Each structure stands twice: as structure tokens, then as C-alpha cells.
């Protein structure tokens, strides 16, 4: 990159190269100064003490806190991803329906959940059933409520006891993640199907396929190839968002690190944060790398006639759908 001209800078001449060398020196000094200030401040507060850092070399810290936390983080992310993909497929295809009574409600649901903060959805699942279930239990719907919980919601660990429902933190986190990310997936699915050239479906109809045949045999197989990078990029967002479970005390990685480790090891909050941050960054970089690889592969692919959607290009946010500009480029 440095050796060639880009849109902002021409190839440097001798004077420009001199300027760049000076700028390099100054910038290196400034950054070194910032790092040094941080190191000194940490030292001033005794944060480099070995007893604060050494717990992360002990196997019991990993066995008791970090690995169980990581398991809960990845577990919630995995369950939420699968359910969100189902949600996204249903509502994304629903929004493309020719029937207004399917298209419009699907659109409202998707736009609503994309505009809602994730935390509010998690709170909704966590607090609301608990608050209102005793009232419903005394009403004619009491039996229905109990049966619904016993025969369906119990899969997610939801319990009903004397008419009061308790939703476990895991279910609440998954609920929020599914609604929000499912709506984003729905937009990705819609954009993916729309990106298949019109001639493809016209050709499908002309050889006598019905709507379902065109969708299942022509559009979806091509769209999936195109959507994969965006979907994997959104999974990184989903994985990061599991950390919001911290707020309702879901024992995921962040919660274990901040509530589990520091009380037992000299209140080493900063150190726990740095170690856990490194774990999150490593996992997410790995998943992002996978998305970039998928994108490169699908650009080369001849299995699709559509243009690959970039991994960086999440669909435009709620309320902006009317101007959904091509997110194809990076």
C-alpha cells in the first residue's frame, strides 16, 4: 500500500518522503508516550503486582471461571445463531411475499426488532413473565399458561411454580439475541434474494416452475452463497452481544471474569478485563477471518449469478430501509 498512489496521496517525492520520516518519528514518540503514561499510572496504583496477574497462569482459574464462562458464551451464541437463522429465513422470505397480509406484518416485525435495544428485549423476557404470570394464573388463561410452559417453554429451562413463571438468564439472553439478530438476518436474506438477477427467476418460471420451485431451486441456492459472508460477520456481532448477559447475571465469560475472579484474587478487575478482552478478540478475529475467506471464495464461485455481499456490509439500520443502497461493495 505504501509503495503505490492511492486516492488521497500521490507517490511521495524526496521532500514528501522526508516529511513522512519526520511524521513517523513524531507519531512513534506520541504513541510511546501514551503507552508509558498508562504503564506509569498502573505502576502508581500497584497494578503490575505479580499476585494480580499470576492467577491467570493457574489451572483452577481457567477450570472454575474462564472455561465454564466461555462454554456459556459459546452455548448461548450457538443456540441463538441457529434460532435466529430460522427466524431470519422465515421473516426475510415473508417480506418478499406477493401477499400484502404476509409482507406487511413481516416488515413491521423486522423493523420493530431492529429498532429495539437488545437489552430491553432481554429485560422483557427476564422480568415481564415473572411479573404478569400470577395475574394470568388466576384468570381463565391459567391452564393454557401452565400447559404452554410445561410442554413448550420448558425446553429453554423456563419453570412455572404456583402460577409464577421464572425465566432463566440463558433463555432471556437467547430470546433477545434471536429477535434482534434474526431481524438482521431477515434483511440479509431479503437483500441476498434480491441480488439474484431477475432473469434467473424469469427463466425458472418459463420452464414451468411454480413460485415455491423458483424460490427453493433457483433463488435460495444462489442467494445463500452470496449471503454467507454477511451472515458470518453478523455472528461476530451476536457473539459480542452475549456479553450483555452480564447485566442480568448470566454466567457467561464476562460475568465469570468480573464477578468470579476478582473477589478471590485481590480484586484484579483490570487484569481480568484485559485477559478476557484478549479471548474475545481472538475468537472474533478468527470468525471474521473466516468471513473474509468465505467472501473471497464466493466471489470466485460460479455457483451464483449474483454479486457477493461484503462481510463488512450489514444492511442499513431500521428506518433507513427505504434507501437500502447497495451494500455490495466494501
Amino acid at each position, binding site marked *: *500500500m*505504501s509503495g503505490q*498512489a*492511492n*486516492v*488521497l*496521496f*500521490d507517490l511521495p517525492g524526496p521532500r514528501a518522503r522526508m516529511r513522512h520520516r519526520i*511524521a*513517523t518519528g513524531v*507519531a*512513534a514518540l506520541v*504513541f510511546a508516550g501514551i503507552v508509558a503514561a498508562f504503564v506509569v*499510572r*498502573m505502576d502508581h496504583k500497584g*497494578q503490575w503486582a505479580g499476585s494480580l496477574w499470576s492467577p491467570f497462569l493457574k489451572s483452577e482459574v481457567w477450570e472454575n471461571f474462564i472455561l465454564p464462562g466461555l462454554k456459556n458464551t459459546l452455548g448461548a451464541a450457538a443456540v441463538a445463531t441457529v434460532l435466529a437463522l430460522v427466524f431470519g429465513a422465515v421473516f426475510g422470505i415473508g417480506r418478499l411475499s406477493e401477499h400484502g397480509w404476509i409482507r406487511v406484518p413481516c416488515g413491521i416485525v423486522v423493523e420493530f426488532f431492529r*429498532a*429495539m*435495544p*437488545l*437489552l*430491553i428485549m432481554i*429485560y*422483557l423476557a427476564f*422480568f*415481564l413473565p415473572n*411479573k*404478569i404470570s*400470577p*395475574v*394470568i394464573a*388466576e*384468570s381463565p388463561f391459567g391452564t393454557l399458561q401452565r400447559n404452554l410452559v410445561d410442554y413448550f417453554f420448558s425446553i429453554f429451562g423456563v419453570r412455572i411454580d404456583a402460577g409464577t413463571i421464572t425465566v432463566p438468564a440463558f433463555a432471556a439472553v437467547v430470546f433477545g439475541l434471536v429477535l434482534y439478530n434474526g431481524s438482521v438476518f431477515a434483511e440479509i436474506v431479503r437483500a441476498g434474494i434480491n441480488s439474484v438477477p431477475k432473469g434467473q427467476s424469469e427463466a425458472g418460471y418459463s420452464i414451468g416452475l411454480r413460485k415455491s420451485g423458483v424460490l427453493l431451486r433457483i433463488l435460495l441456492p444462489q442467494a445463500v452463497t452470496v449471503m454467507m459472508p454477511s451472515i458470518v460477520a453478523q455472528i461476530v456481532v451476536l457473539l*459480542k*452481544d452475549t*456479553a*450483555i448477559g*452480564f*447485566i442480568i447475571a448470566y454466567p457467561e465469560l*464476562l460475568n465469570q471474569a*468480573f464477578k468470579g475472579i476478582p473477589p478471590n484474587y485481590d480484586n484484579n*478487575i*483490570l487484569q481480568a*478485563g484485559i485477559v*478476557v*478482552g484478549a479471548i*474475545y*478478540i481472538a475468537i*472474533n478475529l478468527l470468525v471474521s477471518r473466516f468471513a473474509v475467506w468465505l467472501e473471497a471464495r464466493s466471489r470466485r464461485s460460479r455457483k451464483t449469478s449474483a454479486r457477493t455481499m461484503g462481510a*463488512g456490509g450489514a444492511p*442499513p*439500520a*431500521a*428506518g*433507513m430501509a*427505504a*434507501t437500502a*443502497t447497495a451494500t455490495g*461493495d*466494501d
Partner: protein
Amino acid sequence: MELSDLFDFGPFFDNFDAILDGFWATIRLSLAAGVLSLIIGTILASFRVAPVPVLRAAGTVYVNIVRNTPLTLVLIMCSLGLNDILALTFSDDSGTTYYWWAVLGLSAYTGAFVCEALRSGINTVPIGQAEAARSLGLTFSQSLRMIILPQAFRAVIAPLGSVFIAMIKNTTVATAASYAEVVTQMKTLLDLPSFTSGAIPLFLGVAIGFLILVLPTGYFFGWLAKRTAVVR
């Protein structure tokens, strides 16, 4: 209690002032973080496109670290780590200092996304535009001011809108960093034993509040992007 009591808006309106206070706190955080993240993002973007390798590397490292860290972790590190442990406080009043740490944490996080939006905007300007400007004899600052930035800014409006909407929604996470915004107020009300019947109206009210904040922002950026779009 009867079923119809679940939709009794009385308790909700009794506590309307507290909820409005919460939304006002959310708006204050959004505005401050919006401005600051735009500044941070512009600086970072200028690093990432600079001809100086050290600046480019610093920008890349920052963006990759911050984008892959959960916002909850960033905000808790600001409040518990930098404020409480390293004692880097903004003021003696804990409310003020936690507010500014929430602003700073949210801006540091959002800035990385603003940077990526701006950088991709600059990359949409075809290199021929810059070459034409140079061959006309325009200096660096002239071509930046008159040729490149006017085109880049237009391409950036829609992605920036998405980033800011995500930021407004992300302000709710600041509740984990001891900043009393609308979700904190909501939790306080839900914890009141007397508030049983007000739960549904409360969630409806907060949801409508966020729709009022988010949807017009989205339509505004969408309108602006459409109006200023560059036809190529």
C-alpha cells in the same frame, strides 16, 4: 387483580417523570457520544489512510481491538477499571464522572465503527478523480477539499446513519457502567413490589420511546443519503 389491570396505565403515568428523566439521560449520552465518536472516528480514519506506516498501523490495531471487544467490557473497564482502580476521575461527583466515562467509553467504541464507515467512503471515490485533480495542478489540500471529501462525505451518510442508530441503542448498555439512563430507571420501577400491574405499560412506553428516537434518525439519514447521493 384482573387481566384488565395488566393494561392499567395508571402506575406508568404516576412514574412518568422518572421515565422521562431516564430518556433525557439517554439523549444526553447519545448526543455527547455522537459528537465525540465523530471526532475520534475522523482522527482514526485519517490515521488509517495516512501515508505514514506508524499511523496506519496504530489505526488498524485500535480498530481491530475495539471492534472485536464487547461494548459491555469496554464500559465496565472504563467505570470499574480506569475510574475506580486507576482513579482517573473527571470530577468528585460520582454521577458526573460516571457520565463522562460512559460518554468516553461509548465514543471510543463507536469511533472505531465511524472510522470504518469514513474509510470505506473515501475508498468509493474513484482514483481517476484524484488523478484528474492532480493533473489540473490542484494541491493536496485543494484536491482534498474540492474533489475528494465532497464525494466521500456523500457516500458516507448512509453507513454513518446506521452507526449512529446502533449507538443510540447501545446507550442502554451504559446501565452496566453505573450510568442511570432509561433502562436503569426501568429496572428500579420493576423492582418495586407495588409496580406489578405496570409492567406491560412500562415496556410499551419504553419501546415507543426508543422508536421515537431511532426511526426519525433513520429516516433523516436515509433522506439525506438519497438527496446527496452521487450518481456515477
